[in-house]
């Protein structure tokens, strides 16, 4: 499966699932509260200048900066 941390800059995709790294993973929960839920469209709008970390993601009308470890929890399916 493709994950948000490997989506190239400018790439569009739709969220398939958000994975828990641990039981009651607070980061996965927070991602959900921010709107990272299955079915939402995401786009990577920028990557950090050092080691392409963090990444800036557009999710509907909001934009979030995520570190790669956080983005790696978000599984995607690509759209044409």
């Amino acid at each position, binding site marked *: 499966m493709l994950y948000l941390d490997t989506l190239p800059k400018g790439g569009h995709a739709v969220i398939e699932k958000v994975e828990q*790294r641990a039981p009651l993973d*607070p*980061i996965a*929960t*927070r*991602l*959900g*509260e*921010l*709107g990272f*839920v299955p079915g939402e469209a995401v786009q990577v*709008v*920028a*990557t*950090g*200048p*050092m*080691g*392409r*970390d*963090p990444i*800036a993601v*557009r999710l*509907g*009308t*909001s*934009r*979030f*900066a*995520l*570190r790669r*470890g*956080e983005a790696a929890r978000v599984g995607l399916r690509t759209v044409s």
Partner: protein
Amino acid sequence: MSATESPQTPASSLHIALVGNPNCGKTSLFNQLTGSRQKVANYAGVTVERKEGFFTTPNGRAIRVLDLPGAYSLDSTSPDEDVTRDVCLGRHRTEPRPEMLVAVISATNLRLHLRFLLELKQLGLPVIVALSMMDEARRHGLQIDIAGLQADLGIPIVPVISLNRAGVMPLLQALDLPLPAPPVPLPAGLDPHMEVRRLLATYVVDPASGTDRLTDRLDRVFLHPVWGPVILLIVLFVMFQTVFAWAQPLMDGLGNGISLFGEIVLKPLPGGVLHSLLADGVLAGAGTVIVFLPQILILFLWILALEESGYLPRAAFLLDRLMALAGLSGRSFIPLLSSFACAIPGIMAARTIQNPRDRLVTILIAPLMTCSARLPVYTLLIGAFVPHRSVLGIFGLQGLVLFGLYAVAIVSGVIAARVMTRGVKSEEHPLLLELPSYRRPNLRSLALGLWQQAVMFLSRVGTIIVTLNVLLWALSSFPLPPAGAPGPAIDYSLAGRIGHLMQWVFAPIGFNWQICVSLIPGLAAREVAVSSLATVYAIGATDDGAADRLLPLLSTQWSMATAFSLLAWYVYAPQCISTLAVMRRETGSIKTVLGAAAYLFGLAYLAAFLTYHITRAITGVP
């Protein structure tokens, strides 16, 4: 909704709270409602800012409003969200439960903010929605069926534009009506995200899918991997140029003005204790306080403007990887950079860090960033003990030592931050930073923000600094020397005696009694150490030539080990009461201040000890 004279609601008072996501327009609404009738403090025991304000509705109802910290959810992940959750649930230790919530929701970001509103519906408290940024939403071509949405949610919705009084009038009028009934909670098992999607699909017509094209275009430049950092460097360069260059003439002017004022006002007084108390205690203390103001105000003008415009989170994005080396996030960069000018505005700037742990660590390591007040001490000691010669033909040895002192301080700060950010929570430290749309900063908001900074600094920090200054003056002046006594007056004072006693502690790091004595008045401000050394060596402290005449004296009387040890001491020691005072104010915890002083003095002693003994071993002085 219209303002109706309603017999059921006499002009009784009402206690409400503003709740909403970060960047929902809550702060501008709060500022517009309350103007300057605000009280800013901390919640007991946590580094979370508590903002309360007062205003009156058109019908004369007195409203007390609490501006709760921005939150994404009541399922909190940070101490500021804890405060919001506890107050909303009526579980807070010191804060009573508000009678009604005003949920602030940005029309430009409905998907995110409506989800939080659905959580607020569960609370059983009356709620009114203030729908902010309607002007912007319309510009983006967004159409919202407010009447339909309000009926569906079962919550009154009033559109607000927080730019002027007329823009918040609908909310003021709604507050004159009887309290609405608490909304019906969502049925159990209903996914709030699905519910939000349904609401958006039913009540929002959104031809351009709400896209903010301007923000997209600006982000392409400001977040570009090459141009982004270049622009950030230019912004930071201009910012610190103004903090240093613009503030300096103002600081000099204020400093001179205060001394002139002192001379004129105190002239009629006879010389003696009262004159000395007013001139060297009170006025000198007030001078120290006021002289900080230009730097604080210029720095905060920048920070407030960058924050309001939406650029500050972008700067944090660009710097995040760099600051992660210290276990912090990009948000800590500007407060730490400011601390190179002075730790006081730096520590105050740490207020822009949302994550409380990062904020505390940033405050704790800010004194390690070499502030400009250390320069006079560094220059004096380097001038006296480091030979003026070049290394490898291009570098001056004196410059290299100075560079080394800065580098050691930065490395120590990074290590200290790493140590402090470990342990308590070794788990992953999230960034999850929202990048809001770019906006033009509102001048009224900026002015109000600056005014608050100035008042808070002068009233809360200023009084502590003046008091401590008078205390230090008394320590250094009493008891008076016997008539005709040889030696400097300070030697007979309490400070002098304490200094002599301190020598037991400081002899292992090579400090003589003169240094120990001058460290006490030097607590008032780091650079004061130079003039107090001059006093102790009886050169006459006040004239400007003190440092020049001190230089040859020190190089003959002190060993190199002692001088280097004092340099090492100054890299770490919190030799500045004002810094500790502002720390006390910002963290609201005397324990934190004592902890910070203990770790910094501890580091200073250790570094000076090592430096003293290593230098002695190298120079072969027993």
